[in-house]
């Protein structure tokens, strides 16, 4: 043992840079990859900005004249349409998140801390599979299967909880949408779509909880739930926020599911059981792009820019939330 060590030490002089080429190459490669992300981001931002510029800077009213979906006779401007769409996008995504996050955390906890090992493995695999289903399939399923099932429930909801503005029926007809193609349906399908993502990430985070902390809680006489509250959640907090943001990112940008499920409209109504009130930026762009003229394309790209900025803001907010108590994160 000792003799071998000695021989190696003699053969390798202190000045030798072994495999320096590989090291340098790898360093360059990873630096390059990191730089590429920045370049791509900048390229996308620049594209959005230059293409949207004519629409953003239009003051002559020419835009409203040329773009059929801006209706100046109703007092609408591009900004207002974008405002309605941002409202719709945020409303639907927020509801989706509100539904998906607790469910995902529940599923993730079940897999990481409650289920027998074999069941947990199978369930985890299934959840990952769900994440791989294309959104258009969710959209089709939602439109054809889920919505007809949900509609009677919406009617019931409006009958008994219609006094809550969220569940208010249509004031002119006194009933909810007979087709169920409403914001809540879109939000539900989005929730189903983002549950696998949030679950997969939170599950991994929960599994990483240090045994030490779990045992510390259990040894003080914590029940399993108390242990989870004491050790697992605090440890996984930033992970939960991160997972939620991933889910939100998908929800904000999701096009097909909304496109196929929602009866669209533009308003700032909170009535999620009425159709024709909401639309999202992504779905709007997708539905208007094919027939758009030059000015229309520019205006649509301006909306894309708005979505881009919202997504950035949401991510920054998430980072701020996570970093606010970084001293207590346990990452030391």
């Amino acid at each position, binding site marked *: 043992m000792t003799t071998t060590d000695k021989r190696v030490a003699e053969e390798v002089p202190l000045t030798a840079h072994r495999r320096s080429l590989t090291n340098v190459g790898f360093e360059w490669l990873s630096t390059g990859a990191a730089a590429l992300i920045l370049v791509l981001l900048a*390229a996308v931002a620049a594209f959005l900005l230059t293409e949207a510029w004519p629409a953003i800077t239009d003051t002559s009213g020419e835009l409203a004249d040329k773009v*059929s979906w801006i209706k100046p006779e109703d007092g609408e401007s591009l900004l207002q349409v974008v405002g309605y769409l941002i409202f719709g996008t945020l409303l639907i995504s927020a509801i989706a998140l509100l539904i998906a996050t607790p469910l995902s955390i529940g599923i993730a906890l079940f897999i990481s801390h409650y289920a027998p090992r074999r069941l947990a493995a199978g369930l985890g695999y299934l959840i990952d599979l769900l994440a791989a289903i294309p959104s258009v399939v969710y959209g089709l399923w939602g439109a054809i299967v889920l919505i007809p099932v949900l509609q009677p429930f919406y009617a019931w909801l409006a009958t008994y909880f219609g006094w809550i503005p969220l569940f208010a029926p249509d004031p002119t007809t006194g009933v909810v949408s007979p087709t169920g193609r409403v914001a809540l349906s879109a939000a539900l399908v989005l929730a189903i779509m983002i549950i696998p993502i949030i679950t997969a990430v939170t599950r991994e985070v929960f599994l990483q909880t240090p045994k030490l902390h779990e045992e510390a809680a259990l040894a003080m006489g914590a029940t399993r739930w108390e242990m989870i509250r004491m050790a697992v959640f605090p440890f996984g907090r930033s992970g939960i926020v991160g997972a939620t943001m991933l889910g939100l990112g998908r929800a904000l940008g999701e096009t097909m599911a909304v496109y196929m499920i929602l009866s*669209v409209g533009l308003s700032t109504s909170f009535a999620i059981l009425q159709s024709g009130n909401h639309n999202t930026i992504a779905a709007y762009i997708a539905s*208007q792009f094919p027939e758009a003229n030059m000015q229309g394309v520019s205006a649509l790209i301006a909306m894309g820019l708005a979505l881009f900025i919202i997504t950035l803001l949401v991510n920054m907010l998430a980072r701020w939330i996570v970093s606010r108590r970084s001293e207590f994160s346990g990452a030391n």
Partner: protein
Amino acid sequence: MNLALRSGAVASAAALTLLLSACSASNEADPTTEAATTTDAATSAPATTLSGELNGAGASTQDTAMQAWRAAFQEQNPDLTINYDPVGSGGGRTAFLDGSVAWAGSDAALSEDEYALAVDRCGADGAINLPMYISAIAIAFNLEGIDTLNMDAATVANIFDGKITMWNDAAIAAQNEGVELPATAITIVHRSDESGTTKNFTDYLAKASDGAWPYDASGDWANSLGESGQGTSGVKQILTDTPGTIGYLDSSQAGGLGAVAVKVGDEYVVHSAEGAAAAFDAAAPAGVNGDNDLAFKIDRTTSAAGAYPVMLASYVIVCQTYDDAEVAANVTSFLEYTASAEGQTLAAEQAGSAPMSPALSEKVVAILEGIAANSGV
């Protein structure tokens, strides 16, 4: 270990290059350069027989017919490859004007601005609109046991503007004696995307309803009422699934649903290919680029016998002269075929469209025969 690391590095480097090139391509992608490539490739082939690649883009309305036309025409001309990208009317016109495609399919004729741009693209003679695809728009509903209902344009407009909300409304009942109308709420269904179907339907409502439809014709739905579906299939799905609904969609897709017979003159007419063709024959010429420009202004208030004015006409937009002889030959030969009686019959069979009248068909073919390559360039 060392080896594995190196090959990994090579692979990542390759991926990096790919990404970079993809990135720059998407940044600099300029439709004109693509078009130039297509035409360059075409120039090298002999111009006497049809061969090479012919690219068109535009209205999805024409897509089904276009598929049938392409298949049939390529069978006769195996060396020719025809592509049609159903990007939508606006996208098609844009692609045509910037030169990426040889012709565009469009539910609307060129606008004033676009005529001007077409001079840059085609030369001094500019571009013209030629009718190619005529189709009836069905006003369809889902009511148990009722196949047709008579309505005048004002009634239809009031329904779609939310002023008539029940199926047993007096306005509907008055025109349908003997039909037992249910006391069901009316759910209107419209397109969620901008579409030629919507534009033609609302054009009908705006012009024929005596002011009952307060909006202008638009490819976007005007009010915020009712349900909306994505594309013709989306609308059809809602109509089929939900009792009490009424919507509008291409005639060929309206099977199985109840249909509104609209009032034309003193008659009530149900949607049909013949009706649409008759209405188009009654249309007034509206072309602005010389005699060859066959844009039409459809008379929605026509009282011509058998005409069904809730219809759309979709055009092809072509240059009067093409720089390249082969492109010119390809475009004209193909479109001469689609405009011919044979082509129109095929579209009627495959896509449920209305064949143009023989006179119109012959006129379009004659105009196309006159299009040639600009030998000077």
